[in-house]
């Protein structure tokens, strides 16, 4: 039996195109994998194929998944695909293939004893967890021109989920959220839908804060300091709940954002 590995661009469009191709060519899911980057060790006997992202094909897959898996099921698949783990695309593809054989595709997601489903649920949980942490940990700074600006550096590709949340919460604000590691920006203009943009030339030194900004930062740091009950103190607990990797971007753990690299 021939093993196929499809290599595609990371992101929904790329992976959905690969899923489309796998169906089109009648590959067998059990022996077909989808990778978003070249593997270090090529596997003997596997046939590698590079897939060119095709919006028409990916659109078809997207609609099928939305239809067959329902809103919640589709959300689970998307969050799993936001994971940074290498095997995400394969796990999602195989889960989708198994699901589409059922009358109610979304029911596959309850089969926790299935390896692929279990994997998808775990990937989803981790991406969801980080996304949910960031809904709280994102810190905006007000810039001279009134734009709210934030930097994050998540492991999983959750920027789109953040943009969705904040554009709903702040419909009247202009804001920018920058995923530092991926050079990706979520851009929201007041009253308009948000979009993602890539900019590798962004210079953070050019960011200038508004006149009120320093005051609010100072007030918040003071508040966080005052609200703790010393007698109960537990830094270990704090570290468990708010891992250090988030802190460089958070107002209450930095004196100023200017010296952040």
């Amino acid at each position: 039996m021939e093993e196929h590995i499809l290599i595609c661009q990371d992101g929904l469009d790329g992976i959905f195109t690969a899923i489309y191709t796998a169906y089109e060519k009648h590959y067998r899911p059990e022996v077909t994998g989808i990778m978003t980057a070249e593997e270090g060790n090529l596997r003997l006997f596997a046939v590698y194929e590079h897939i060119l992202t095709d919006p028409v094909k990916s659109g078809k897959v997207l609609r099928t998944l939305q239809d067959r898996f329902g809103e919640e099921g589709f959300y689970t698949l998307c969050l799993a695909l936001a994971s940074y783990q290498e095997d995400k695309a394969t796990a999602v593809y195989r889960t989708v293939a198994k699901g589409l054989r059922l009358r109610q595709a979304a029911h596959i997601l309850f089969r926790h004893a299935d390896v692929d489903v279990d994997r998808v649920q775990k990937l989803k949980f981790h991406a969801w967890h980080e996304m949910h942490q960031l809904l709280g940990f994102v810190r905006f700074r007000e810039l001279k021109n009134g734009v709210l600006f934030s930097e994050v550096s998540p492991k999983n590709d959750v920027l789109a989920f953040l943009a969705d949340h904040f554009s709903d919460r702040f419909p009247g604000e202009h804001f920018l959220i920058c995923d530092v590691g991926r050079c990706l920006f979520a851009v929201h203009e007041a009253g308009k839908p948000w979009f993602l943009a890539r900019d590798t030339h962004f210079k953070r030194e050019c960011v200038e804060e508004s006149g009120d900004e320093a005051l609010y930062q100072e007030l918040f740091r003071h508040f966080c300091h005052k609200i703790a009950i010393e007698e109960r103190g537990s830094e270990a607990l704090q570290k468990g709940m708010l891992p250090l990797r988030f802190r460089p971007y958070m107002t209450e753990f930095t004196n100023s954002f200017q010296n952040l690299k």
Partner: protein
Amino acid sequence: MEYVSRETIGLKEKLGILSDAAKYDVACTSSGVDRKGNGKEMGSALASGICHSFSADGRCISLLKILLTNECIYDCKYCINRRSNDVPRAAFTPEEVCELTIGFYRRNYIEGLFLSSGIVGSPDLTMELLYRTLYLLRNQYHFRGYIHVKAIPGADARLIEKTGLLTDRMSINLELPTAEGLRSLAPNKHRRNILTPMRQIQSGITASQNEVALYRHAPRFVPAGQSTQMIIGATGESDYQILSVAESLYQKFALKRVFYSAFVRVNDDKALPAPVGGPPLLREHRLYQADWLLRYYGFAADELLNEKKPNFNILLDPKCDWALGHLEQFPVEMQTADYQMLLRVPGIGVKSARKIVQARRSARLTFSDLKKIGVVLKRAHFFITCGGKQMYPVKIDEDSITRNLLYEKERLPFEREQITYRQLSLFDDCRFGPVQEGVGIGWKSIS
């Protein structure tokens, strides 16, 4: 310029005083209500709540938790703001509270506002000020984020009603679990003054839910429900008494949450106990675990504790403790046990119980499936069988299981680096201090 900077320092100092004074209120959740944005005004809310930060004591910071003022005409013995204390006093104007809330919210520092207050002038005047602040925040500053406000005991019912239409959650602190405790430590407060508005809020919530069911756009009264707080370890109640009080609050007043606050001795007052080794955190932790069992696991207070066994086991969590006392109900077969029974197995939580029920419809479960599902097998395996088999051949015998469970050290949320679990449990004052005799529950008679 001079003037501006003086103002600034003023605001920072005020915030310092008024958040410091508010910190002993332990509730900081922003949960209970789902509200999408409306495309125009600022703000939304998520039923699960969102934690925005964690303070140095490990507690979640979700709301801007402040007092409108820390001045107070009352003299509750346990409270830092009591009249007889010589502490710096301050008061926010309603506008200042609004500016701060909006400024913090826009920067995503917070999920909303938690506003409380000392009693200025009279309960009515204080409630009026709280109402005015909320009115301004909702209507002039167009804030749609989460608001939790305190209802002031003894305030006019109409003020509470109006305020309830602006807030998401309202709470009135029970302060101490029994009326006797209240009389001895909070001489200006009366049980009746606390329970009356609690009842009013409960009926308001029910009425509003009925109305919303009929007219979708009817204004919503306290949509995230009401909560309360009890101080643990300042008076001599047993865990059984406290848990029974919590249970009747859930059943008779339909509270969303009861919070337990380990007593912190902020005033040197001879009416107050002096817990050795700091606040009774382990006791507080056990109460939260048991509270969870009441709300989500279908347990009743007197299944967990009773007159003969009035306090929690220091070494075991309440669910393990219960299971060990009811070994005749085990082992439980994973393939067939009903959901309620699954919930009673140590090592199986609400999520994993639900997943077990889902997964066994399409496949026979194995121990490795259970592990994938999230069952904590090292605890659960004593109590379950899978396809009629135990994971390891162990005797179902109280002593040996207890020994094994204790061997698996329990993770506690408040462990400090140097203090071990064992030391902490010995420090925990409640079981070693004098237990006040004859404090009746008295609560159950209140309907």
